[in-house]
């Protein structure tokens, strides 16, 4: 064997797979965290609803808590259900 790989260090970036650039609730880019957080990333994750809309988890939780009767997606007014 002339050439053998001993070790390899890969470098990769990750980003959210979202259908929009900005969170529909706080208007902050998904690249950044919601307006209540300071650091983006694992502490301020995104969640998707079954209607395929996505938000910062902090934003949608705040929204859902403020809704008294029905839990609706703020974008399409369908009933909000977390996508599994």
């Amino acid at each position, binding site marked *: *064997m002339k050439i*053998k790989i001993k070790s390899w260090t890969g470098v990769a970036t*990750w980003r959210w797979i979202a259908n929009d650039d900005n969170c529909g609730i706080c208007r902050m880019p998904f690249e950044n965290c919601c307006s209540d957080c300071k650091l983006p990333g694992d502490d301020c994750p995104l969640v998707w609803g079954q209607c395929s809309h996505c938000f910062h988890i902090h934003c949608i939780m705040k929204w859902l808590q403020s809704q008294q009767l029905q839990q609706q997606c703020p974008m399409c007014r369908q009933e909000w259900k977390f996508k599994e």
Partner: protein
Amino acid sequence: MMSLKPRAVAFDEKWEKIEETVTLVLTLGAIKQKYWNERFSDIYALCVAHPDPLADKLYLETKSLLENHVRDLCVKVSAQQDENLLSEYYKHWLKYSTGAKNLNCLYSYLNNQYVQKTKMTEADIMYGGTHSHDSGDRNVRNCHETTGELGLDIWQRELIIPLQNRLAALLLACIKQDRCNQNTDSPTTTIRGVIFSFIDVNMFKNKSSLELFENVFEKALILETGEFYSSEASAILQECDVSQYMEKVINRLSEEKLRATKFLPPSSHTSVEKEVQTKMIADHLATLHAEAPAMVAQENTRDLGNMYKLLKTVHGGVSVMVKQLQEHIKQKGLQATNNLKGDNVPAQFVESLLKVHQKYMDMIKNLFSNDQQFVGALDKAFESVINHRVTSRNICKSPELLAKYCDSLLKKSTKGLNESEVDDKLAQSITIFKYIDDKDVFQKFYSRHLAKRLIQQQSHSMDSEEAMINKLKQACGYEYTSKLHRMFTDMNISAGHNQKFQEYTSQQKIELGINFSINVLQAGAWPLGQSTLTPFSVPHELEKSVQAFEAFYHKNFSGRKLTWLHHLCQGELKVGFTKRTYLITMSSFQMAMLLVFEKTDSLTCAELQQHTTLNDEQFYKFLQSLIDCKILTASEEVLEKTTVLKLNFDYTNKRTKFKITVASPKETQQEVEHTHTSVDEDRKLYLQAAIVRIMKARKVLQHSLLIQEVISQSRVRFIPQIPMIKKCIEVLIDKQYLERSSSSSDQYSYVA
């Protein structure tokens, strides 16, 4: 024991005895205790005499006795020639003032019972109270003062006032003699004693006890001082240069300080000093200021120190020096950073600036006792040196140079410096950092360097890295370093991924065939340009690892997309085709090229490129690096599609473990330009955010006020150009965040 009961008393009989004793008291003659006690009782008896108390009469008699005594003394003293007048006065004053105090004791009963009652209290005077607490004592309405007080008052009226001009003239003459370093006509104690007698004569009074002293002596003294020193100043200036003049003035001032403590009460120390300062410094300000530029230019420490000592006493006096020094430091700073050449420009730049900074900090500390005005001048000078641009179109290089300097300190390659030395140098570089206007440019460069160090594991020490970021955070706040912190966090998270991935592969019984690790970075936080993206087919030796990790990652984190940055990946190859075995670290692209030669010994460029699918630019760049380090040989100097590439079986290298780098100056130049354009983009966003924030709070704001507010908010990061702010306002109007007010043309209002 005599009775204390009031009874009839014959005044003249008693007074005769009292008069005798009082005269003895005033001349400090010997009085037997018995007689003292008798007189004490006599005075009591007179004060309580029946049917009418005789206190009033006693008081008046005593008063005229004292007056006669002092008048006699006055005749004696004024008969003296000038040379003896002061000593004679002082002799009698010492005697009389002690006598008056003693007399006050002898007359205690009168003083306590009659005088104190009639005296108005402070509160009565202040609030207009009446002095009728003691309605029963009609007889003592003349007793306004205690006997001691009365005695001293008489001294003032009957002796000081008639003699005041002669006394003052003689005292001034003595002080002038002392100033001219001649022997004074009278001894120091006498001069001081006479001067203090003008104050002590009022010792029983609380208020305005200095008034007599000020009128009789101090006013004349100040006048005389002014005349003396203004002629002294012109005399010195006639024969000396300014540097000698300053020394002499300093001597004069310190002498005068000593003289003041020798002769004068504390109340006049400052007024005399002020007068000397006025005549010798303030009146010659122009002469002193004229010398300042030369002294600053020569950095003549002694003269500068002296000049500071003198000028700081005059309001606004040092401002000329401050201005000169600021300009001087600026010139020195520009000289130190001008025409830097050689490999190590960043280090030269930072270290020579620090040297200049330290030098003038020391100067300000030693010569100007850290005067804030001078510290301010140093700061201003450094601000203009560090943010200097040759022309307004040039980019200021300082942020870039400083960032490179930090990089060179934090990189593993730093030779001969231990960790604490590195930390010291980093701490010093914060000094320079604070002066930088374009802190955002520094941040961009710094984060690029940091990204490289972290990904390529080049950091000297993680502790130093973190310490430096904390220093930047201290200087600029949390937001400024949040991305840098994020990068650190990503490294830690990646270490966790690697561990979990290993467990995952052993659980799933996946054999990768290589030692695999990975850094998973959050796209937004890392300054990793997309400019070098190129198609690339991963060598099949690595494919398994890539697929396994992607599967692992998606299983753990849903909703995330991974993008491989192959130009940043690197691996270690064991090269066995040569005589010795080498371990070579290289990038994925270079690995992929070499791995193709596993099956063949020679290939054309076109064939190799087909295997790797790299674009032309990247392919030739990385291929060239392999040829440059002689692992591959090419049939032609200039690489063409048909050029034949071969493995170099004769390859030798002293080191068996090394790294192939790709560094072309052209690329770094591009990177610099790219950094500057991305800074501009960030600035626009930052300004827009600031404008929206401000307008959201203010609702309606004038154009000029808005601009001001924006500048003050962004100052911590950079100094925004006004055209850029204007452009951002335009953009926001287009985006309908703002609108121009209908009422006024230079007003904006916020659109909710």
